């Protein structure tokens, strides 16, 4: 802000400076022209004034009556003009040195001329005094002298000659007449000697005096007049004017040069302004670049170069119907631990590259790294089909190749969840979780059924039910008969867990079992069912099988509870079969083995439930000394028309037979299946076709 102010000031200053310079130069030039004009004019007027002075002087010499003031006034005028010019600052400047020195010389010359003029005025007055008075004397002489006397006549005649000659000499300014006048003076002097009359003598005396005066001063008078009237002063003035013209031309050239210089300065100041503007622009561009970079780094994931969650959120805000595909690397934690975090980073980078490569351009999608090993693909939703196509494309790319990362071949598998519902990320994440929890599906597109929040509230309700049911003995065993396929009789019952709600409704395990497992309460259920089964078993000779999960067994408390129950009902413990549900991978075979050893000590037998559904480790299973294999219902269900399933079941039966294990077929829901399993040599069977689960035992029902 401060910089901006300075810059604005600088620009303003430069602009004002430039305008100032131009105005100054304009004014200076104008002034110079005016001054030069004024002085040039003054010189010309001075010249004219001097010519007028010469004229006045000439008049003074000719007119009998003359006012000397006019001469003095004119001298005053010229003197003042010379003074004014001498004091003019322009002429005093060094540029006009020649003019000034010429002017000084002219001024001195004029002062000399002035003295001559004064002398001229003196001489002129004396001369005029005589030339005016001589005719007066002549007139007087005509009265005094006798016109008929010979000498008197000669004298009056001489006086006439004298007057005429002086008139000529004076008016013609001709000195050659002086000789004649001198001659006349001699004659007059001679004639005077003969005159005796006092009056006549005095008149002649005066006449001679006047003649002497004339003879005496006329040459000087003539010289002065010629000096005043000659052209030397005028020439001097013209010389000064000439010098002035030369010097003023040079000065104007000089001023023009200065003007050019100012123009140059002006241009320079504009250049400076341009420089400042350019620099500030450059700085702005640089700032903008840095800002963009900062902004980019804020919304960019440094590792992969993809945009991050912030960018995702910003982008999503502006979209009409956003769709999001979440891609998660399976077992990334495992990769990180196994190969090290460096490799993990390389894997993430590679994934980012692949995603950029394979997401079709037509989608106009943006790809983000949204978390540790989560990638997001955001685009405008158009159709579910298109989304599915893209998802399959991505999966195909990942699963059809092995990735060579820094020389190490890694099989990457990914899971995908996609959504175009509101709460986009949340729902896509639900879909992803759904994929993860499924063993076969590699992708899930969200629909409302996946809404975990619904499931969560169900879970919470279920957990509350379980808790209440345990404390209020509302956990009920339902018994499903298991038929011996050889004898066609009920060999034993499987005790299945049911919860009776407060309102008396009976809930099947689908409604609560998973929640119980997640909450680690399935052990309590198992114990409750076992307890109830014992209660039934102790009053009969029947065999019962009870479900127990590997998780229950690994929990030390549950394990102990079960062993305690066996201890309590030791008498009927021999008629209990534990069905280990292979719903999750068994990790701790040792603990499992020890538990099974424990229960066998009470005479219990052990079955593997849902055999063939998971990743059963045959060797480990055999080591557990299993007694019974319960073939997974999904294999049995379609047995009547699925040749592949038949082959698997047949193999299992053969395997069991050779291992000395009994086999049980579940989900026998039709006669066709029944016949099939019988035909395949399965030992036992259960299912809706043979008997639904019921709170009461079959023979009791029959008895009724």
């Amino acid at each position, binding site marked *: 802000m401060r910089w901006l102010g300075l810059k604005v000031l600088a620009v303003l200053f430069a602009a004002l400076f430039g305008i100032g310079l131009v105005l100054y130069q304009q004014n200076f030039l104008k002034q110079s022209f005016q001054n030069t004009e004024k002085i040039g004019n003054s010189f010309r*007027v001075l010249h004219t004034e001097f010519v007028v002075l010469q004229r006045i002087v000439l*008049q003074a010499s000719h007119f*009998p*009556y003359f*006012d000397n003031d006019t001469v*003095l006034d004119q001298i005053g005028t010229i003197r003042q003009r010379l003074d004014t010019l001498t004091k003019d600052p322009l002429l005093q400047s060094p540029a006009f040195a020649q003019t000034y020195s010429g002017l000084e010389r002219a001024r001195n010359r004029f002062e000399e001329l002035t003295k001559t003029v004064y002398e001229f005025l003196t001489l002129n*007055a004396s001369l005029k005094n005589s030339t005016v008075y001589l005719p007066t004397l002549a007139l007087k002489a005509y009265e005094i002298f006798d016109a008929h006397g010979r000498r008197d006549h000669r004298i009056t005649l001489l006086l006439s000659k004298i007057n005429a000659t002086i008139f000529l000499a004076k008016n013609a300014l001709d000195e050659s007449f002086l000789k004649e006048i001198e001659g006349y003076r001699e004659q007059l002097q001679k004639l005077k000697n003969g005159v005796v009359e006092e009056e006549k003598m005095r008149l002649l005396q*005066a006449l001679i005096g006047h003649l002497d005066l004339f003879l005496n001063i006329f040459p000087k008078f003539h010289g002065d007049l010629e000096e005043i009237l000659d052209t030397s002063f005028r020439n001097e003035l013209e010389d000064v004017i000439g010098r002035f013209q030369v010097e003023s031309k040079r000065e104007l050239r000089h001023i023009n040069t200065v003007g050019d210089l100012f123009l140059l300065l002006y241009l320079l100041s504009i250049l400076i302004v341009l420089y400042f503007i350019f620099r500030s622009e450059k700085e702005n561009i640089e700032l903008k670049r840095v800002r963009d970079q900062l902004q980019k780094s804020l919304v960019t994931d440094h590792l992969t170069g993809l945009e991050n969650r912030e960018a995702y959120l910003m982008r999503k805000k502006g979209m009409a119907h956003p769709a999001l595909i979440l891609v998660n690397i399976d077992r990334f934690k495992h990769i990180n631990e196994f190969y090290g975090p460096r490799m993990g980073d390389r894997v993430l980078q590679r994934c980012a590259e692949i995603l950029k490569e394979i997401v079709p351009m037509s989608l106009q999608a943006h790809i983000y790294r949204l978390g540790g090993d989560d990638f997001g693909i955001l685009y405008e939703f158009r159709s579910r089909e298109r989304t599915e196509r893209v998802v399959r494309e991505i999966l195909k790319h990942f699963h059809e190749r092995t990735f060579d990362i820094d020389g190490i071949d890694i099989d990457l598998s990914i899971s995908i969840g996609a959504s175009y519902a509101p709460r986009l990320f949340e729902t896509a994440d639900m879909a992803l979780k759904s994929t993860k929890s499924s063993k076969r599906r590699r992708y899930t597109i969200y629909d409302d059924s996946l809404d975990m929040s619904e499931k969560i509230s169900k879970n919470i309700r279920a957990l509350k039910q379980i808790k209440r049911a345990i404390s209020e003995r509302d956990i009920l065993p339902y018994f499903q008969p298991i038929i011996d396929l050889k004898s066609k009789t009920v060999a034993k019952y499987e005790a299945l867990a049911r919860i009776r709600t407060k309102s008396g409704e009976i809930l099947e395990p689908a409604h609560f079992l998973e929640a119980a497992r997640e909450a680690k309460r399935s052990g309590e259920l198992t114990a409750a069912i076992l307890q109830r089964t014992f209660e039934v078993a102790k009053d009969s000779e029947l065999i019962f099988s009870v479900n127990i999960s590997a998780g229950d067994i690994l929990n030390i408390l549950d394990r102990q509870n079960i062993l305690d129950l066996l201890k309590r009902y030791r008498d009927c413990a021999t008629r209990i079969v534990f069905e280990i549900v292979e719903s999750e991978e068994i990790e701790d075979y040792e603990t499992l083995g020890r538990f099974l050893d424990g229960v066998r000590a009470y005479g219990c037998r052990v079955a593997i439930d849902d055999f063939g559904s998971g990743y059963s480790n045959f060797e480990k299973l055999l080591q557990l000394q299993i007694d019974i294999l319960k073939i997974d219902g999904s294999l049995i269900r379609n047995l009547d028309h699925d040749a592949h399933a038949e082959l698997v079941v047949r193999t299992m039966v053969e395997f069991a037979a050779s291992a000395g294990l009994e086999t049980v077929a579940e989900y026998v829901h039709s006669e066709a299946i029944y016949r099939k399993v019988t035909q395949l040599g399965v030992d036992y069977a259960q299912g809706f076709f043979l008997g639904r689960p019921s709170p009461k035992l079959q023979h009791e029902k029959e008895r009724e």
Partner: protein
Amino acid sequence: MQLLFFFLFLPHLLPADDPIKPIPKTIAYNTKKAELGRLLFMDPRLSSDKSVACVSCHSFDHGGADPRPVSIGAHGKTGTVNAPTVYNSYFNFRQFWNGRAKDLKEQAKGPLHNPVEMDMVTEEIERFLRSDDDYRKAFRAIYRRAPTHDDALDAIAEFEKALITPNCRFDRFLRKEIDLTDLEHEGYRLFKTLGCATCHNGINVGGNSYQKMGLIFPYPWKETFPDRYDLTRTPADKNVYKVPTLRNIALTAPYFHDGSAPTLELALQKMAYHNLGFDLSADEIEALIAFLTSLTGETPPILQEER
């Protein structure tokens, strides 16, 4: 430009007109300075023995001139010159008999410092002026500083500028306000034809050139005469003086630089003898005196106010 040429050629367009011009009826001057100048002009304390003022030798009762042949200064010292009139001296082209001062201010310095006149030096004048309350106030009011010698001269000159004598009969004739008497007409004609006007012309009827006294018959010369020779030491300048004004000439007897002519008649005869070489008749003198008397003007307005 047109106007300029008009003025330049104005003199040329008025040939052989009357060689005498009337003085203006009024003249512009700085009243305050002139009033201060009047005080100084009348003040004898400006002389070394406090006896002589400017007015002592330029008497307002004698046409601004000295009725004595030569002036008497401080300590009773006698001068060598008859004081010329102060009236209309503003119109003279130079000041003093030999024109050695270029203007009134420069002239005023002369008598103040002349040992046979007021006999003062600059420092004394200033000391006196500064010691006097009235002067101090007056100078402060006009010149915005303590009294100085130069400012005093300036004030005196301003006062003298105001000493003009307008509306003499002849000026009024020139302005065609009145006609002259026949005698006066005759005197004016003689004044021109006898050659007087060749020297006595212009606004001041003289005072505009230097001329020699004794063109035909030499005027006796003395070393003490205040002539041009006194300045130039050129023999031809002996007895050459600034032509004195003839205004108020009837009031300013005695006449000439040496005060040697006690009456106008004698003065006329002397001039006729020395510069024309001839005597004037009684009729001629009567006519000339009538003309010269018509040059007597009114008392300067600045002096009238007093009365």
